């Protein structure tokens, strides 16, 4: 795939589409399969949210549905905008984008409103904004741009370490919000960028070893030495993931109830009214973090499979976009977006079915929440922008 970045680079220079290019031509070069899969996901997500949250606000069964629809509206605008904006423009202003995002994250630290002990949100009146979601995009663009500029020195360890060092700034900020899940997603996105930018396999491998060492240190070494980096609940969740029966009413309550909800769904689900785990609030956060468990309870294996297939379609088209990208930068951005999606889907779905630790990350397109919906749609928009420009540049 990403073996000859130099050639892509040269081609992109040569076949750059002219400003004011034919609109019809541009429209025709979009990936409509990706668009259709995204539309399907968003529509499916709205349907799911409506069914799940019908009982949550007593006076208004469509409380969450209406708000989510508004977020979808904003998200669609973001998608269109991101499609129209040239990735190169983003690349040029990546420092501004990255700096602004970091600033927002610091603001979150100082001013943010705490929800269940963690500061992730900025309160904008009726809307709570979560900068770490948008931060995903900024991080990808920034690191991809950084590496694209140093494409010739990509096989040097120094370049790789610099890129990681820069990436660690938002990762650590998010980690100490604390938002362990999003920090993991950031790391996944960073690794994807490194991979698609052509970093040497040896470097990636040593990175993996270092990560493993860090994990051991965080979970065992440092606590043994009396230094607590992870909060006790985070350790509980990680341990609970490995042994769900250790404390069913305590720290593993979430995972137990979630697995019960998913399992109870069976092949074709318990329906909206019959989904007691969701309706009677046994399932925590059933509109956000555990939305997949609710869906699986209400619609069963069939309903959950439809969602996973739609995701697979998006990921498959995303990988295609990497292939048609007309520059190293575009390719690594697209690759990181796909990587981030894939990781986030696996982590979220995995945690609801007991094969990944519990971390508070949303399920793209489905979980209730504006920041996530808008960011996810914007990321699809960027994929479209990369696809269209790649196609117009004649790269197939």
């Amino acid at each position, binding site marked *: 795939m990403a073996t000859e970045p130099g050639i892509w680079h040269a081609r992109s220079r040569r076949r750059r589409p002219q400003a004011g290019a034919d609109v019809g031509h541009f429209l025709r070069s979009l990936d409509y399969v990706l668009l259709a899969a995204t539309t399907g996901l968003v529509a499916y997500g709205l349907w799911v949210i409506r069914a799940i949250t019908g009982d949550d606000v007593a006076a208004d069964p469509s409380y969450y549905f209406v708000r989510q629809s508004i977020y979808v509206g904003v998200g669609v605008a973001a998608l269109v905008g991101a499609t129209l904006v040239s990735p190169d423009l983003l690349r040029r202003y990546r420092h501004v984008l990255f700096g602004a995002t970091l600033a927002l994250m610091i603001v979150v630290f100082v001013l943010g409103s705490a929800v269940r002990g963690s500061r992730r949100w900025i309160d904008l009146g009726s809307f709570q904004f979560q900068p770490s979601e948008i931060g995903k995009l900024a991080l990808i663009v920034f690191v991809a741009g950084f590496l694209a500029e140093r494409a010739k020195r990509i096989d040097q360890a120094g370049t790789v370490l610099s890129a990681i060092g820069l990436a660690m700034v938002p990762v650590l900020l998010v980690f100490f919000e604390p938002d362990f899940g999003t920090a993991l997603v950031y790391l996944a996105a960073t690794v994807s960028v490194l991979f698609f930018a052509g970093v040497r396999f040896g470097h990636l491998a040593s990175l993996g070893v270092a990560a493993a060492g860090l994990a051991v240190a965080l979970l065992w070494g440092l606590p043994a030495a009396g230094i607590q980096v992870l909060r006790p609940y985070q350790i509980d969740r990680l341990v609970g993931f490995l042994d769900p029966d250790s404390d069913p009413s305590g720290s593993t309550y979430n995972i137990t109830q979630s697995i*019960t909800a998913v399992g109870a769904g069976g*092949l074709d689900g318990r329906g909206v009214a019959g989904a*007691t785990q969701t309706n*009677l609030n*046994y399932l925590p956060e059933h509109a956000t973090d555990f939305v997949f468990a609710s869906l699986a309870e209400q619609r069963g294996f069939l309903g959950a499979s439809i969602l996973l297939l739609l995701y*697979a379609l998006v990921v498959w088209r995303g990988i295609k976009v*990497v292939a048609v990208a007309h520059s190293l930068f575009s390719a690594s951005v697209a690759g990181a977006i796909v990587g981030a999606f894939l990781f986030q889907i*696996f982590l979220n779905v995995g945690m609801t*079915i007991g094969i990944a630790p519990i971390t508070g990350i949303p399920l793209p397109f489905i979980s209730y929440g504006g920041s996530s919906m808008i960011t996810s749609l914007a990321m699809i928009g960027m994929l479209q922008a990369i696809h269209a420009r790649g196609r117009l540049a004649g790269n197939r």
Partner: protein
Amino acid sequence: MGIVAVALFAVLFFRLWALQVISGDDYLKSARSNQIRAFRIQPPRGPILDRDGVALVTNVPGTIVRLWPADVPDGRLDETVRRLSELLDVPEKELWQSVRARAGDPLTPVVVKTNVHDAKANYLDEHQAEFPGVRVGPTQLRRYELGSFAAHLLGYVGEITELELRQKGEGYAGGDRIGKTGVEAAYDDYLRGQPGVGQVRVNALGERTSGLVPSRMPQAGYAVRLTLDTDLQGAAEDALRWGVQFARENGSWAANGGAIVAMNPLNGELLALASYPTFDPSVFSGRPDPNKVQQLFDPEVSAAANHPMLNRAVSGLYPAGSVFKPVTALAAMSEGILDPYELISCVPERIIDKQKFVNWDPYRNEAMQLRTALSNSCDTYFYDVALRFYDLPPERGNPLQDWAKKMGIGIETGIDVGPESAGLLPTPAWRKRHFDTAIDRLWSSGDSVQLAIGQGDLLVTPLQMTRFYALFANGGKLVEPHLVKSIEQPRAEGETGPPVVLRTFAAKPPQGLDLNPSFIQVVREGLWDATHDANYGTSYGVFGFYEVPIAGKTGTAEKFVTLPEGYLGTDQPFARLMDQAWWCGWGPYEGESWGGKKPLVVCALVENGGHGGEVAAPVALRVFAEYFDTPLPAIAPRESD
């Protein structure tokens, strides 16, 4: 990247398949049990009816306040318990005990209080949010229609204790109310009904999200019909109260208790079973008032009040005194050591083995046949008979005790409502077992002499004596006394027509004793003379002029009594020999009925009441007068034994 994506999606699909399709049913079960909470629905307890179907014990709707400790949010239990205790006047300490006893059983609530005042129930209803886990609901309370009427035999109900729960086992659960004493306890299986099971859906916070849906309807308890005659029982209780008062006025200041048994001598149906002093069983309805209950259970308070919970008719133990003499007479004749027509001297006193034994009447000095000796209750006559038993060769065993036992003395009668005391029939073997010193362990002539007149170590219950006297009215048979006639389908309100009888407790056929009918007849005549012989009869002054032919025997049993401090207002403990007044007998003397009424056998006992002929006989007369529906005759009781 593609390979990684395929691998990850494959993992998710496989795991989903495993969870949802392969083991989906298991998870479905646990999801269901998550939100359904099962409750026991207590059935209405069956009523207790008298022999004519008059309700003695029923249920009334009441308000109950329950606390589900498991539904109280963390940290708010202290506050909730404190506020409940203040609002409902329940001691906080006691409430905590109940809460702790329920730890680990989230389905059974703690009963905070029953019979809550409406205003307080409404306050709780309106302030639901301030009392998490507290619910006000309707309940059924036991209602004792006639107050303390027949309290000892009806019994009372209470919450099952942990010990009872372990003993009863299946079918019982914590929080159940079960019969504790009397009919309520003995026939609990019939009265309690089958609890139903109801389900409510609750959410993760334990709040109810649906109404109670019964999955098994409770089955109301059955009605228990007694053999008891309400009017006669009432008359017996009144007579007993009157007798205690009468005894005190007669100089027996310590009289404060007694018992009456009235029984059909043909089949053992108990028509009245009174015990004094008594208590009000409604004290135990709902959550008992600790002060009132303590009075009943506190040993000191209870002793000072002369043990109001004790059912003296069935488990009160007394020396029999002269009412035992017919036993001695029958045994002696049956053993061939007494000819009823031989003359034995009745003297003021006899010295036996250097010990002086006196007759109750120091002026009597003549030879008597058995009939007169019974009529006059001559003690010295029976001392002579006692020595004949004592002088029997050892190979003859202990025939007096053997016959007494055959006649139901010192053994349980088998009454269906307990607890019953067996009493004590002393034998040489018992003496040997029971005492330590050589002199005490030996059965002496004095022991035989004492036993022959119902004194010494002998202890009987009024019910035992009633059962014995019944054999003079039924031709020498021993019946089994019983209090419950049948089990019936409970009737809905306003329902009339014949009751649906589910089970009848047929009286056990009376047990023949192989007594020579002529012996029985001699004793019968002696007992007739006791009530009708103007010269000798010990209760002639009471029954001599009564229109219904009654025969019976007086008894004045000496008992060493220890009275506690506070007994009838005394300021120090008190111990001495006191006379227990007895009268046992039956009417009509002959024939199947009198005035359309079947025969009745009655025993009356007044504790520390003085002479049987003076106190107990008039008490028994009142029971006969009610039963045979006659006016109470004028009486002239005289000093007797």
